[in-house]
Protein backbone atom coordinates (compact mmCIF):
# COMPACT_ATOMS: atom_id res chain seq x y z
CA UNK A 1 0.00 0.00 0.00
CA UNK A 2 1.12 3.44 -0.86
CA UNK A 3 -0.80 5.57 1.38
CA UNK A 4 -4.21 4.32 0.56
CA UNK A 5 -3.56 3.25 -2.98
CA UNK A 6 -2.80 -0.44 -3.35
CA UNK A 7 0.36 -1.08 -5.29
CA UNK A 8 -1.27 -3.76 -7.37
CA UNK A 9 -3.79 -1.24 -8.61
CA UNK A 10 -1.03 1.06 -9.75
CA UNK A 11 0.64 -1.83 -11.45
CA UNK A 12 -2.52 -2.95 -13.17
CA UNK A 13 -3.07 0.54 -14.51
CA UNK A 14 0.50 0.58 -15.70
CA UNK A 15 0.10 -2.80 -17.33
CA UNK A 16 -3.10 -1.71 -19.00
CA UNK A 17 -1.44 1.38 -20.38
CA UNK A 18 1.45 -0.71 -21.62
CA UNK A 19 -0.89 -3.01 -23.43
CA UNK A 20 -2.82 -0.15 -24.93
CA UNK A 21 0.45 1.26 -26.16
CA UNK A 22 1.29 -2.12 -27.54
CA UNK A 23 -1.97 -2.17 -29.47
CA UNK A 24 -1.17 1.17 -30.96
CA UNK A 25 2.34 0.22 -31.83
CA UNK A 26 1.18 -2.87 -33.60
CA UNK A 27 -1.99 -1.67 -35.24
CA UNK A 28 -1.34 1.89 -36.30
CA UNK A 29 0.26 2.63 -39.60
CA UNK A 30 1.30 6.20 -39.10
CA UNK A 31 4.87 6.28 -37.84
CA UNK A 32 4.10 9.17 -35.52
CA UNK A 33 1.19 7.38 -33.98
CA UNK A 34 3.32 4.31 -33.52
CA UNK A 35 5.90 6.40 -31.79
CA UNK A 36 3.24 7.99 -29.63
CA UNK A 37 2.15 4.52 -28.61
CA UNK A 38 5.68 3.67 -27.69
CA UNK A 39 5.88 6.82 -25.60
CA UNK A 40 2.77 5.64 -23.83
CA UNK A 41 4.43 2.31 -23.13
CA UNK A 42 7.39 4.07 -21.59
CA UNK A 43 5.05 6.16 -19.50
CA UNK A 44 3.35 3.09 -18.25
CA UNK A 45 6.74 1.89 -17.11
CA UNK A 46 7.23 5.19 -15.36
CA UNK A 47 3.98 4.76 -13.54
CA UNK A 48 4.91 1.30 -12.39
CA UNK A 49 8.32 2.33 -11.16
CA UNK A 50 6.92 5.26 -9.28
CA UNK A 51 4.47 2.89 -7.71
CA UNK A 52 7.20 0.52 -6.73
CA UNK A 53 9.37 3.35 -5.49
CA UNK A 54 6.67 4.83 -3.38
CA UNK A 55 5.81 1.44 -2.05
CA UNK A 56 9.41 0.73 -1.16
CA UNK A 57 9.87 4.20 0.20
CA UNK A 58 12.84 4.91 -1.99
CA UNK A 59 13.60 7.82 -4.21
CA UNK A 60 15.31 5.65 -6.74
CA UNK A 61 12.09 5.19 -8.63
CA UNK A 62 11.75 8.87 -9.19
CA UNK A 63 15.29 9.11 -10.32
CA UNK A 64 14.77 6.36 -12.84
CA UNK A 65 11.72 8.16 -14.14
CA UNK A 66 13.66 11.37 -14.33
CA UNK A 67 16.19 9.75 -16.59
CA UNK A 68 13.57 7.95 -18.60
CA UNK A 69 11.86 11.22 -19.35
CA UNK A 70 15.16 12.67 -20.46
CA UNK A 71 15.74 9.70 -22.66
CA UNK A 72 12.24 9.94 -24.07
CA UNK A 73 12.84 13.55 -24.93
CA UNK A 74 16.05 12.73 -26.73
CA UNK A 75 14.40 9.87 -28.51
CA UNK A 76 11.57 12.09 -29.61
CA UNK A 77 13.98 14.61 -31.08
CA UNK A 78 15.87 12.02 -33.05
CA UNK A 79 12.78 10.09 -34.03
CA UNK A 80 10.95 13.07 -35.35
CA UNK A 81 14.04 14.15 -37.24
CA UNK A 82 14.14 10.75 -38.87
CA UNK A 83 10.47 11.00 -39.78
CA UNK A 84 11.05 14.35 -41.38
CA UNK A 85 14.07 13.11 -43.20
CA UNK A 86 12.17 10.13 -44.55
CA UNK A 87 9.18 12.23 -45.46
CA UNK A 88 11.34 14.24 -47.78
CA UNK A 89 11.79 11.14 -49.90
CA UNK A 90 8.51 9.35 -49.62
CA UNK A 91 6.00 12.08 -48.88
CA UNK A 92 4.45 9.71 -46.38
CA UNK A 93 5.11 8.25 -42.99
CA UNK A 94 2.70 5.39 -43.43
CA UNK A 95 4.91 2.47 -42.56
CA UNK A 96 3.00 0.15 -44.83
CA UNK A 97 4.36 2.12 -47.70
CA UNK A 98 7.92 2.25 -46.49
CA UNK A 99 9.24 -1.06 -47.70
CA UNK A 100 12.05 -0.42 -50.07
CA UNK A 101 14.25 -2.66 -47.99
CA UNK A 102 12.89 -6.13 -47.70
CA UNK A 103 13.45 -9.83 -48.38
Amino acid at each position, binding site marked *: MIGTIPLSEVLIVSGALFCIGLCGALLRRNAIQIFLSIELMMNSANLAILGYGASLGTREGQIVVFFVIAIAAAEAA*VGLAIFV*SLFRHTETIDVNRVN*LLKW
Partner: protein
Amino acid sequence: MTGTFVQLSHADWLSILPEVALASAGCLILLLEAFAPSLRRWFATLALAGVAASLYLLMAAPAGTTFDGRFETSPLTWLMGLFLGGSAAVAILVAKPYLERIRDEKGEFYALLLWGHLGVSLMIRGLDLLIIFIGLEILSLSFYVLAAYFRGIEASSEAGLKYFLTGAFASAFTLYGIVLLFGASGGTRIAGLAQEGLAGRPAVILGVLLLLVGFGFKMSLAPFHAWAPDVYQGMPTPAVLYLSIAPKGASVLVLFRVLAAVFQPGLPDRLHAAVAALAVLSMTLGNVVALAQRDAKRLLAYSGIAHMGYVTIALAVFGREALAAAIVYFFAYLVSNAGAFAAVSALYRDESKPHPVAMLAGEGRRARFAAAVFALCLFSLAGIPATAGFIGKFFIFKAALERGLYALAIIGVLNSLVSIGYYLKVVYILYMRDPIEPEGPPPLAFADGLALSICAAGIFAFGIFPAALWRLARSAAATLPLPGP
Protein backbone atom coordinates in the same frame (compact mmCIF):
# COMPACT_ATOMS: atom_id res chain seq x y z
CA MET B 1 26.08 9.64 1.99
CA THR B 2 23.32 10.43 -0.40
CA GLY B 3 22.82 13.80 1.02
CA THR B 4 25.90 15.58 -0.21
CA PHE B 5 26.69 16.98 -3.61
CA VAL B 6 29.35 15.69 -5.92
CA GLN B 7 31.50 13.39 -3.96
CA LEU B 8 33.57 11.91 -6.68
CA SER B 9 36.44 9.96 -5.28
CA HIS B 10 39.76 9.59 -7.03
CA ALA B 11 38.87 6.06 -7.96
CA ASP B 12 35.58 7.19 -9.43
CA TRP B 13 37.43 9.61 -11.61
CA LEU B 14 39.96 7.12 -12.75
CA SER B 15 37.29 4.63 -13.58
CA ILE B 16 35.24 7.01 -15.68
CA LEU B 17 38.18 8.42 -17.60
CA PRO B 18 37.88 6.01 -20.54
CA GLU B 19 34.37 7.21 -21.19
CA VAL B 20 35.41 10.78 -20.66
CA ALA B 21 38.07 10.32 -23.29
CA LEU B 22 35.52 9.06 -25.76
CA ALA B 23 33.07 11.81 -25.04
CA SER B 24 35.78 14.44 -25.30
CA ALA B 25 37.14 13.06 -28.52
CA GLY B 26 33.64 13.22 -29.96
CA CYS B 27 33.15 16.77 -28.75
CA LEU B 28 36.54 17.83 -30.01
CA ILE B 29 35.83 16.48 -33.46
CA LEU B 30 32.50 18.21 -33.47
CA LEU B 31 34.09 21.47 -32.46
CA LEU B 32 36.75 21.16 -35.10
CA GLU B 33 34.06 20.40 -37.64
CA ALA B 34 32.41 23.61 -36.77
CA PHE B 35 35.48 25.81 -36.45
CA ALA B 36 38.26 24.18 -38.43
CA PRO B 37 36.70 22.05 -41.17
CA SER B 38 40.02 22.00 -42.97
CA LEU B 39 41.28 19.55 -40.41
CA ARG B 40 38.75 16.97 -41.50
CA ARG B 41 41.29 14.51 -42.78
CA TRP B 42 42.63 14.19 -39.25
CA PHE B 43 39.28 13.34 -37.74
CA ALA B 44 39.70 9.63 -38.20
CA THR B 45 43.09 9.77 -36.56
CA LEU B 46 41.64 11.77 -33.75
CA ALA B 47 38.82 9.33 -33.31
CA LEU B 48 41.27 6.47 -33.29
CA ALA B 49 43.32 8.30 -30.73
CA GLY B 50 40.19 8.69 -28.63
CA VAL B 51 39.50 5.00 -28.80
CA ALA B 52 43.10 4.17 -28.04
CA ALA B 53 43.21 6.57 -25.13
CA SER B 54 40.03 5.17 -23.76
CA LEU B 55 41.46 1.66 -24.00
CA TYR B 56 44.64 2.74 -22.30
CA LEU B 57 42.73 4.46 -19.54
CA LEU B 58 40.54 1.44 -19.14
CA MET B 59 43.58 -0.73 -18.69
CA ALA B 60 45.19 1.74 -16.36
CA ALA B 61 42.14 2.08 -14.16
CA PRO B 62 42.41 0.13 -10.93
CA ALA B 63 40.16 -2.86 -10.71
CA GLY B 64 37.13 -2.63 -8.52
CA THR B 65 33.71 -1.07 -8.43
CA THR B 66 33.11 2.62 -8.33
CA PHE B 67 30.21 5.01 -8.24
CA ASP B 68 28.64 3.39 -5.30
CA GLY B 69 29.00 -0.08 -6.72
CA ARG B 70 27.33 0.79 -10.00
CA PHE B 71 30.34 0.77 -12.25
CA GLU B 72 32.89 -1.95 -12.79
CA THR B 73 36.55 -2.04 -13.68
CA SER B 74 37.76 -5.60 -13.91
CA PRO B 75 39.53 -8.02 -16.21
CA LEU B 76 36.13 -8.66 -17.68
CA THR B 77 35.46 -5.06 -18.59
CA TRP B 78 39.02 -4.67 -19.80
CA LEU B 79 38.73 -7.64 -22.11
CA MET B 80 35.30 -6.65 -23.33
CA GLY B 81 36.54 -3.09 -23.64
CA LEU B 82 39.28 -4.38 -25.88
CA PHE B 83 36.67 -6.13 -27.93
CA LEU B 84 34.61 -2.97 -28.24
CA GLY B 85 37.65 -0.84 -28.88
CA GLY B 86 38.70 -3.18 -31.63
CA SER B 87 35.33 -2.92 -33.31
CA ALA B 88 35.39 0.84 -33.02
CA ALA B 89 38.90 1.11 -34.34
CA VAL B 90 38.16 -0.99 -37.39
CA ALA B 91 34.92 0.90 -37.96
CA ILE B 92 36.78 4.21 -37.87
CA LEU B 93 39.47 2.92 -40.20
CA VAL B 94 36.85 1.75 -42.65
CA ALA B 95 34.82 4.92 -42.22
CA LYS B 96 37.56 7.24 -43.37
CA PRO B 97 37.93 6.02 -46.95
CA TYR B 98 34.22 5.34 -47.06
CA LEU B 99 33.34 8.89 -46.21
CA GLU B 100 35.99 10.16 -48.55
CA ARG B 101 34.50 8.15 -51.35
CA ILE B 102 31.12 9.71 -50.86
CA ARG B 103 32.82 13.08 -50.30
CA ASP B 104 31.02 13.53 -47.05
CA GLU B 105 33.67 13.22 -44.43
CA LYS B 106 32.12 15.16 -41.62
CA GLY B 107 32.90 15.18 -37.97
CA GLU B 108 29.39 14.18 -36.96
CA PHE B 109 29.87 10.69 -38.21
CA TYR B 110 32.89 10.09 -36.02
CA ALA B 111 31.36 11.91 -33.10
CA LEU B 112 28.22 9.81 -33.22
CA LEU B 113 30.28 6.69 -33.62
CA LEU B 114 32.38 7.57 -30.61
CA TRP B 115 29.37 8.40 -28.49
CA GLY B 116 27.66 5.25 -29.52
CA HIS B 117 30.80 3.46 -28.54
CA LEU B 118 30.64 5.25 -25.22
CA GLY B 119 27.14 3.94 -24.75
CA VAL B 120 28.22 0.38 -25.35
CA SER B 121 31.10 0.92 -23.02
CA LEU B 122 28.65 1.92 -20.33
CA MET B 123 26.67 -1.21 -21.05
CA ILE B 124 29.56 -3.50 -20.35
CA ARG B 125 30.77 -1.66 -17.30
CA GLY B 126 27.47 -0.81 -15.69
CA LEU B 127 26.47 -2.80 -12.64
CA ASP B 128 23.23 -0.92 -12.53
CA LEU B 129 20.38 -1.58 -14.90
CA LEU B 130 19.70 2.10 -15.24
CA ILE B 131 23.20 2.95 -16.40
CA ILE B 132 23.03 0.02 -18.74
CA PHE B 133 19.76 1.31 -20.09
CA ILE B 134 21.18 4.76 -20.56
CA GLY B 135 24.17 3.29 -22.32
CA LEU B 136 21.87 1.31 -24.52
CA GLU B 137 19.94 4.43 -25.39
CA ILE B 138 23.06 6.43 -26.15
CA LEU B 139 24.09 3.68 -28.48
CA SER B 140 20.67 3.44 -30.02
CA LEU B 141 20.20 7.14 -30.58
CA SER B 142 23.61 7.54 -32.14
CA PHE B 143 23.00 4.66 -34.46
CA TYR B 144 19.44 5.65 -35.32
CA VAL B 145 21.05 8.74 -36.68
CA LEU B 146 23.89 6.90 -38.35
CA ALA B 147 21.41 4.56 -39.99
CA ALA B 148 19.66 7.48 -41.56
CA TYR B 149 22.94 9.24 -42.18
CA PHE B 150 22.53 9.44 -45.94
CA ARG B 151 19.75 11.91 -46.05
CA GLY B 152 19.89 11.90 -49.80
CA ILE B 153 19.19 8.23 -50.07
CA GLU B 154 15.77 6.86 -49.39
CA ALA B 155 17.04 3.48 -48.31
CA SER B 156 19.13 5.07 -45.61
CA SER B 157 16.22 7.09 -44.28
CA GLU B 158 14.08 4.01 -44.35
CA ALA B 159 16.72 2.09 -42.43
CA GLY B 160 16.71 4.89 -39.90
CA LEU B 161 12.96 4.76 -39.54
CA LYS B 162 12.88 1.04 -39.15
CA TYR B 163 15.70 0.92 -36.72
CA PHE B 164 14.22 3.74 -34.73
CA LEU B 165 10.69 2.35 -34.51
CA THR B 166 11.73 -1.18 -33.70
CA GLY B 167 14.48 0.02 -31.41
CA ALA B 168 12.19 2.26 -29.43
CA PHE B 169 9.64 -0.51 -29.28
CA ALA B 170 12.22 -2.92 -27.92
CA SER B 171 13.48 -0.28 -25.48
CA ALA B 172 10.04 -0.02 -24.01
CA PHE B 173 10.14 -3.72 -23.23
CA THR B 174 13.63 -3.47 -21.82
CA LEU B 175 12.53 -0.63 -19.66
CA TYR B 176 9.54 -2.53 -18.40
CA GLY B 177 11.79 -5.44 -17.60
CA ILE B 178 14.02 -3.15 -15.60
CA VAL B 179 10.98 -1.83 -13.81
CA LEU B 180 9.85 -5.29 -12.85
CA LEU B 181 13.28 -6.18 -11.53
CA PHE B 182 13.38 -2.87 -9.71
CA GLY B 183 10.12 -3.69 -8.11
CA ALA B 184 11.35 -7.06 -6.99
CA SER B 185 14.76 -6.07 -5.74
CA GLY B 186 14.10 -2.56 -4.61
CA GLY B 187 16.77 -0.98 -6.76
CA THR B 188 18.42 -0.92 -10.09
CA ARG B 189 21.69 -2.54 -9.04
CA ILE B 190 22.29 -5.91 -10.60
CA ALA B 191 23.86 -7.08 -7.40
CA GLY B 192 20.53 -6.43 -5.71
CA LEU B 193 19.00 -9.16 -7.79
CA ALA B 194 21.05 -11.74 -6.01
CA GLN B 195 18.65 -11.85 -3.08
CA GLU B 196 17.36 -14.99 -1.58
CA GLY B 197 14.05 -16.13 -2.99
CA LEU B 198 13.96 -13.73 -5.86
CA ALA B 199 14.61 -16.21 -8.61
CA GLY B 200 11.29 -17.95 -8.32
CA ARG B 201 9.01 -14.94 -8.51
CA PRO B 202 6.92 -14.57 -11.64
CA ALA B 203 7.67 -10.85 -11.84
CA VAL B 204 11.38 -11.53 -11.77
CA ILE B 205 11.11 -14.19 -14.42
CA LEU B 206 9.00 -11.88 -16.55
CA GLY B 207 11.48 -9.09 -16.00
CA VAL B 208 14.38 -11.28 -16.99
CA LEU B 209 12.50 -12.42 -20.06
CA LEU B 210 11.79 -8.85 -21.05
CA LEU B 211 15.46 -8.04 -20.69
CA LEU B 212 16.23 -11.13 -22.70
CA VAL B 213 14.07 -9.98 -25.58
CA GLY B 214 15.26 -6.40 -25.24
CA PHE B 215 18.91 -7.32 -25.45
CA GLY B 216 18.10 -10.14 -27.82
CA PHE B 217 16.83 -7.42 -30.07
CA LYS B 218 20.17 -5.65 -29.89
CA MET B 219 21.89 -8.93 -30.59
CA SER B 220 19.58 -9.42 -33.57
CA LEU B 221 18.64 -12.75 -32.14
CA ALA B 222 15.76 -14.42 -33.94
CA PRO B 223 12.84 -13.80 -33.63
CA PHE B 224 13.84 -10.30 -32.56
CA HIS B 225 16.06 -9.93 -35.55
CA ALA B 226 13.75 -8.60 -38.19
CA TRP B 227 15.19 -5.10 -38.18
CA ALA B 228 18.74 -6.19 -38.84
CA PRO B 229 18.74 -7.10 -42.55
CA ASP B 230 16.90 -3.96 -43.58
CA VAL B 231 18.92 -1.69 -41.37
CA TYR B 232 22.23 -3.21 -42.35
CA GLN B 233 21.34 -2.82 -45.96
CA GLY B 234 20.46 0.83 -45.75
CA MET B 235 23.02 1.93 -43.20
CA PRO B 236 26.50 3.20 -44.07
CA THR B 237 28.79 0.19 -44.02
CA PRO B 238 31.26 1.37 -41.35
CA ALA B 239 28.39 2.01 -38.97
CA VAL B 240 26.97 -1.42 -39.69
CA LEU B 241 30.36 -2.84 -39.01
CA TYR B 242 30.28 -1.48 -35.50
CA LEU B 243 26.62 -2.12 -34.95
CA SER B 244 26.92 -5.72 -36.05
CA ILE B 245 29.58 -6.49 -33.50
CA ALA B 246 29.99 -4.39 -30.42
CA PRO B 247 26.42 -4.01 -29.15
CA LYS B 248 25.92 -7.74 -29.56
CA GLY B 249 28.84 -8.53 -27.33
CA ALA B 250 27.75 -5.99 -24.78
CA SER B 251 24.20 -7.32 -24.79
CA VAL B 252 25.36 -10.87 -24.18
CA LEU B 253 27.50 -9.69 -21.32
CA VAL B 254 24.58 -7.81 -19.79
CA LEU B 255 22.40 -10.89 -20.08
CA PHE B 256 25.11 -12.96 -18.43
CA ARG B 257 25.39 -10.43 -15.64
CA VAL B 258 21.67 -10.37 -14.99
CA LEU B 259 21.19 -14.10 -15.25
CA ALA B 260 24.22 -14.73 -13.08
CA ALA B 261 22.84 -12.46 -10.41
CA VAL B 262 19.33 -13.83 -10.44
CA PHE B 263 19.96 -17.53 -10.98
CA GLN B 264 22.99 -18.41 -8.95
CA PRO B 265 23.13 -22.18 -9.22
CA GLY B 266 21.93 -22.33 -12.79
CA LEU B 267 19.09 -21.47 -15.10
CA PRO B 268 15.71 -22.94 -14.23
CA ASP B 269 14.79 -25.69 -16.65
CA ARG B 270 12.06 -23.73 -18.33
CA LEU B 271 14.19 -20.72 -18.88
CA HIS B 272 16.97 -22.90 -20.10
CA ALA B 273 14.58 -24.44 -22.61
CA ALA B 274 13.52 -21.01 -23.75
CA VAL B 275 17.09 -19.84 -24.24
CA ALA B 276 18.01 -23.04 -26.04
CA ALA B 277 14.99 -22.62 -28.29
CA LEU B 278 16.14 -19.11 -29.10
CA ALA B 279 19.57 -20.43 -29.95
CA VAL B 280 18.20 -23.08 -32.26
CA LEU B 281 15.76 -20.74 -33.92
CA SER B 282 18.33 -18.05 -34.45
CA MET B 283 20.96 -20.38 -35.86
CA THR B 284 18.56 -22.11 -38.15
CA LEU B 285 16.60 -19.15 -39.36
CA GLY B 286 19.71 -17.06 -39.84
CA ASN B 287 21.53 -19.68 -41.83
CA VAL B 288 18.64 -20.89 -43.90
CA VAL B 289 17.45 -17.46 -44.89
CA ALA B 290 20.98 -16.30 -45.54
CA LEU B 291 21.11 -18.92 -48.27
CA ALA B 292 18.50 -16.99 -50.16
CA GLN B 293 20.10 -13.57 -49.85
CA ARG B 294 21.38 -11.68 -52.83
CA ASP B 295 22.69 -8.58 -51.11
CA ALA B 296 26.06 -8.78 -49.40
CA LYS B 297 25.06 -6.75 -46.40
CA ARG B 298 21.78 -8.56 -45.92
CA LEU B 299 23.65 -11.81 -46.20
CA LEU B 300 25.99 -10.73 -43.48
CA ALA B 301 23.03 -9.62 -41.42
CA TYR B 302 21.53 -13.09 -41.53
CA SER B 303 24.94 -14.55 -40.92
CA GLY B 304 25.09 -12.39 -37.81
CA ILE B 305 21.68 -13.61 -36.72
CA ALA B 306 22.94 -17.16 -37.03
CA HIS B 307 26.10 -16.37 -35.11
CA MET B 308 24.10 -14.94 -32.27
CA GLY B 309 22.38 -18.28 -32.16
CA TYR B 310 25.72 -19.92 -31.50
CA VAL B 311 26.50 -17.42 -28.77
CA THR B 312 23.13 -18.10 -27.24
CA ILE B 313 24.20 -21.70 -26.84
CA ALA B 314 26.74 -20.34 -24.37
CA LEU B 315 23.93 -18.53 -22.61
CA ALA B 316 21.98 -21.77 -22.45
CA VAL B 317 25.00 -23.59 -21.07
CA PHE B 318 25.30 -20.82 -18.50
CA GLY B 319 28.54 -21.13 -16.65
CA ARG B 320 31.91 -19.57 -16.25
CA GLU B 321 33.34 -21.63 -19.09
CA ALA B 322 30.40 -20.69 -21.22
CA LEU B 323 30.96 -16.99 -20.64
CA ALA B 324 34.63 -17.42 -21.46
CA ALA B 325 33.63 -19.30 -24.59
CA ALA B 326 31.25 -16.52 -25.53
CA ILE B 327 33.98 -13.94 -25.05
CA VAL B 328 36.35 -15.92 -27.26
CA TYR B 329 33.55 -16.30 -29.74
CA PHE B 330 33.03 -12.58 -29.82
CA PHE B 331 36.66 -11.88 -30.44
CA ALA B 332 36.57 -14.35 -33.32
CA TYR B 333 33.37 -12.79 -34.55
CA LEU B 334 34.93 -9.36 -34.26
CA VAL B 335 37.86 -10.07 -36.53
CA SER B 336 35.85 -12.11 -39.01
CA ASN B 337 32.78 -9.95 -39.26
CA ALA B 338 34.64 -6.67 -39.14
CA GLY B 339 36.90 -7.94 -41.88
CA ALA B 340 33.92 -8.99 -43.93
CA PHE B 341 32.24 -5.62 -43.64
CA ALA B 342 35.50 -3.83 -44.27
CA ALA B 343 35.87 -5.86 -47.43
CA VAL B 344 32.31 -5.07 -48.45
CA SER B 345 33.07 -1.43 -47.91
CA ALA B 346 36.22 -1.65 -49.98
CA LEU B 347 34.74 -3.73 -52.77
CA TYR B 348 31.72 -1.67 -53.76
CA ARG B 349 32.14 1.43 -55.79
CA ASP B 350 28.78 3.06 -55.37
CA GLU B 351 27.62 3.36 -51.81
CA SER B 352 24.22 4.65 -52.72
CA LYS B 353 23.18 1.53 -54.56
CA PRO B 354 22.44 -1.90 -53.19
CA HIS B 355 25.32 -4.30 -52.76
CA PRO B 356 24.35 -7.42 -54.68
CA VAL B 357 26.75 -10.28 -54.17
CA ALA B 358 26.66 -11.03 -57.87
CA MET B 359 28.40 -7.74 -58.53
CA LEU B 360 31.49 -9.12 -56.84
CA ALA B 361 31.98 -11.61 -59.65
CA GLY B 362 35.60 -11.97 -60.54
CA GLU B 363 36.79 -9.39 -58.04
CA GLY B 364 39.10 -12.03 -56.63
CA ARG B 365 41.37 -11.23 -59.52
CA ARG B 366 40.93 -7.47 -59.54
CA ALA B 367 40.76 -6.44 -55.93
CA ARG B 368 43.05 -9.16 -54.75
CA PHE B 369 43.75 -8.18 -51.22
CA ALA B 370 40.25 -7.14 -50.25
CA ALA B 371 38.80 -10.22 -51.87
CA ALA B 372 41.33 -12.51 -50.24
CA VAL B 373 40.62 -11.12 -46.81
CA PHE B 374 36.92 -11.25 -47.51
CA ALA B 375 37.23 -14.91 -48.38
CA LEU B 376 39.33 -15.50 -45.31
CA CYS B 377 36.73 -13.81 -43.15
CA LEU B 378 33.99 -15.88 -44.69
CA PHE B 379 35.91 -19.06 -44.03
CA SER B 380 36.39 -17.87 -40.50
CA LEU B 381 32.70 -17.13 -40.13
CA ALA B 382 32.04 -20.59 -41.48
CA GLY B 383 34.30 -21.98 -38.80
CA ILE B 384 37.02 -23.57 -40.86
CA PRO B 385 39.95 -24.54 -38.64
CA ALA B 386 43.08 -22.45 -38.37
CA THR B 387 40.82 -19.42 -38.35
CA ALA B 388 39.42 -17.58 -35.40
CA GLY B 389 35.89 -18.65 -36.23
CA PHE B 390 36.76 -22.24 -35.64
CA ILE B 391 38.20 -21.48 -32.24
CA GLY B 392 35.03 -19.63 -31.31
CA LYS B 393 32.86 -22.56 -32.25
CA PHE B 394 35.30 -24.94 -30.63
CA PHE B 395 34.85 -23.41 -27.21
CA ILE B 396 31.11 -22.95 -27.56
CA PHE B 397 30.59 -26.56 -28.55
CA LYS B 398 32.99 -27.75 -25.92
CA ALA B 399 31.00 -25.90 -23.30
CA ALA B 400 27.76 -27.33 -24.66
CA LEU B 401 29.05 -30.87 -24.69
CA GLU B 402 30.50 -30.54 -21.23
CA ARG B 403 27.12 -29.49 -20.00
CA GLY B 404 25.54 -32.42 -21.85
CA LEU B 405 23.67 -30.28 -24.35
CA TYR B 406 24.27 -32.70 -27.18
CA ALA B 407 21.26 -31.78 -29.24
CA LEU B 408 22.24 -28.12 -29.24
CA ALA B 409 25.75 -28.99 -30.32
CA ILE B 410 24.55 -31.24 -33.10
CA ILE B 411 22.06 -28.70 -34.37
CA GLY B 412 24.87 -26.19 -34.16
CA VAL B 413 27.24 -28.12 -36.37
CA LEU B 414 24.52 -29.01 -38.83
CA ASN B 415 23.81 -25.33 -39.07
CA SER B 416 27.45 -24.72 -39.72
CA LEU B 417 27.10 -26.97 -42.69
CA VAL B 418 24.22 -24.91 -44.03
CA SER B 419 26.19 -21.74 -43.43
CA ILE B 420 29.06 -23.03 -45.54
CA GLY B 421 26.61 -23.03 -48.41
CA TYR B 422 26.22 -19.26 -48.49
CA TYR B 423 29.69 -18.31 -47.34
CA LEU B 424 31.20 -20.35 -50.10
CA LYS B 425 28.72 -18.92 -52.52
CA VAL B 426 30.28 -15.54 -51.97
CA VAL B 427 33.73 -17.03 -52.25
CA TYR B 428 33.04 -18.65 -55.54
CA ILE B 429 31.43 -15.57 -56.92
CA LEU B 430 34.56 -13.69 -55.95
CA TYR B 431 36.97 -16.18 -57.41
CA MET B 432 35.30 -18.50 -59.83
CA ARG B 433 33.03 -16.26 -61.84
CA ASP B 434 34.11 -13.89 -64.51
CA PRO B 435 33.65 -10.21 -63.79
CA ILE B 436 30.39 -8.62 -64.87
CA GLU B 437 31.22 -5.10 -63.83
CA PRO B 438 33.20 -3.24 -66.47
CA GLU B 439 35.14 -1.40 -63.84
CA GLY B 440 36.78 -2.94 -60.85
CA PRO B 441 36.29 -1.64 -57.34
CA PRO B 442 38.04 1.55 -56.34
CA PRO B 443 41.72 1.24 -55.50
CA LEU B 444 42.25 0.00 -52.00
CA ALA B 445 42.62 2.85 -49.58
CA PHE B 446 45.35 2.69 -47.01
CA ALA B 447 42.97 2.70 -44.10
CA ASP B 448 40.89 -0.05 -45.66
CA GLY B 449 44.02 -2.06 -46.25
CA LEU B 450 45.07 -1.53 -42.68
CA ALA B 451 41.68 -2.59 -41.36
CA LEU B 452 41.68 -5.67 -43.53
CA SER B 453 45.19 -6.55 -42.51
CA ILE B 454 44.34 -6.22 -38.85
CA CYS B 455 41.35 -8.49 -39.27
CA ALA B 456 43.29 -11.06 -41.25
CA ALA B 457 46.06 -11.03 -38.70
CA GLY B 458 43.51 -11.40 -35.95
CA ILE B 459 41.83 -14.28 -37.68
CA PHE B 460 45.08 -16.16 -37.90
CA ALA B 461 46.34 -15.10 -34.52
CA PHE B 462 43.24 -16.23 -32.69
CA GLY B 463 42.84 -19.18 -34.99
CA ILE B 464 46.29 -20.58 -34.51
CA PHE B 465 47.28 -19.37 -31.07
CA PRO B 466 44.11 -19.11 -29.07
CA ALA B 467 45.64 -20.09 -25.76
CA ALA B 468 46.33 -16.57 -24.55
CA LEU B 469 42.89 -15.36 -25.45
CA TRP B 470 41.29 -18.32 -23.78
CA ARG B 471 43.26 -17.74 -20.58
CA LEU B 472 42.26 -14.10 -20.55
CA ALA B 473 38.67 -14.96 -21.22
CA ARG B 474 38.63 -17.48 -18.43
CA SER B 475 40.07 -15.15 -15.89
CA ALA B 476 37.70 -12.45 -17.08
CA ALA B 477 34.75 -14.77 -16.78
CA ALA B 478 35.69 -15.45 -13.20
CA THR B 479 34.53 -11.92 -12.42
CA LEU B 480 30.92 -12.97 -12.61
CA PRO B 481 29.38 -15.21 -9.98
CA LEU B 482 28.61 -17.92 -12.51
CA PRO B 483 28.47 -21.60 -11.78
CA GLY B 484 31.35 -23.66 -13.06
CA PRO B 485 34.77 -24.89 -12.22
